[in-house]
């Protein structure tokens, strides 16, 4: 089920891309599996064809999906596509954190220390028997 949120500030094509990646990451769409055509997904979600087309083009560029002439669209055969998507997400979060830190004038050392602190807190929380 795809949901386009009106409170999400990102453009619709980005929201669609993310939800497609999520489907792949959780294994609903397996590597090499056929996915709906652009037109079909547009009708299913209720958004314009051109928006879904853009999401597909970007995902193709990222190597997440492939289009085979006359056969349709498929999840990339690369068996690690789920892991790769999570890796991309992590990279984005880290970049965001670094940008925020830079804007606050935080040194790399300082940022590192704070990440380590979060790590320890999360690890502790997981150890604790509830």
């Amino acid at each position, binding site marked *: 089920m795809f949901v386009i949120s009106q409170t999400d500030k990102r453009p619709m094509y980005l929201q669609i891309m993310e939800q497609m990646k999520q489907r792949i990451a959780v294994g609903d769409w397996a590597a090499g599996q056929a996915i709906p055509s652009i037109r079909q997904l547009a*009708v299913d979600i209720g958004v*314009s064809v051109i928006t879904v087309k853009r999401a597909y083009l970007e995902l193709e560029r990222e190597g997440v999906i492939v289009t085979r002439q006359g056969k349709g669209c498929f999840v990339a055969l690369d068996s690690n596509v789920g892991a790769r998507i999570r890796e991309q997400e992590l990279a984005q979060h880290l970049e965001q954190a670094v940008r925020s830190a830079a804007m606050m004038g935080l040194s790399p050392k300082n940022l590192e220390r704070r990440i380590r602190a979060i790590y320890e807190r999360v690890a502790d929380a997981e150890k604790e028997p509830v």
Partner: protein
Amino acid sequence: MNDYAIELSGVCKSYRFFDLQNIALRLNCGTIMGLIGPNGAGKSTTIRILMGLVYPDRGEVRVLGHCIPDAQVAAKWDIGFASDDMRLYDSMTLGWHINFLKSIYSSWDDAYAHLLLKRFGLNSEQKIKGLSHGQRVKAALLLVFARRPKLLMLDEPTTGLDPVARHEILRELTSVMAEEGRSVLFSSQNTQDIEQISDQITFIDRGRIIDSVDKELYLDRWRRLRLEVPDGVQLPTLPGVIGIRQTGRLAVAIANAFEPHLPNAYENSGARVHAVENMTLEEIFVANVEHSREEVKA
């Protein structure tokens, strides 16, 4: 084979207090175009010209390959038109209207008509005079949709509908795209509707077309930049930026031809770029109309 469902060129129409000026427009077959503009901008007049209901003073109009107004009878077999000044027969039931249209149009899809009756929550035995405004709108659209016309021309189809009905209508409009070669032109005051389902957006203001472009390209061209302007720094005038508002050290710049180097250009002038934001069609709409009016004044 004609690639355009609609082609307008050099279309002019003068009224005493309003001019439609040099309208040029193309709608590709198989796509949805949203027509947007302030009240009195010329959206309905444009649609009425396309339907042969208003004759232009000048210019060429082709719809589904037919010259309008001369060949409008031939064109209308394949056009589904609805506007809010259209009336159904008050003393007749919706079912009577359904049977009436079924007897005229061979393309009528009875199964689809019944599906829509259910989806729209309408009762075919009810007389039109007993229907609310929203129910009448839905009834009129049902009668148009069930013909499965090649081209749907809808003047403000979602105005006055509750949110559920609005979503039903939008869903039916996008489902039209499941069949190759069918096209939709619709006008709306609801920018969210236009943003969601249009492949192409056409902006009209004061009888002129300001923009008629691919929606994704269009949304991508506009950005809002949030800037911090330290004392003594003067923000430069940059191409592609149509307006800057500054209060104290904070400024907001609106770009209608955004380029990736634009933030750098501001940084080089000594300002700091805090954020580069996408804009919704609603925000673009307001900025665009304000900007075009300033240009007219200048």
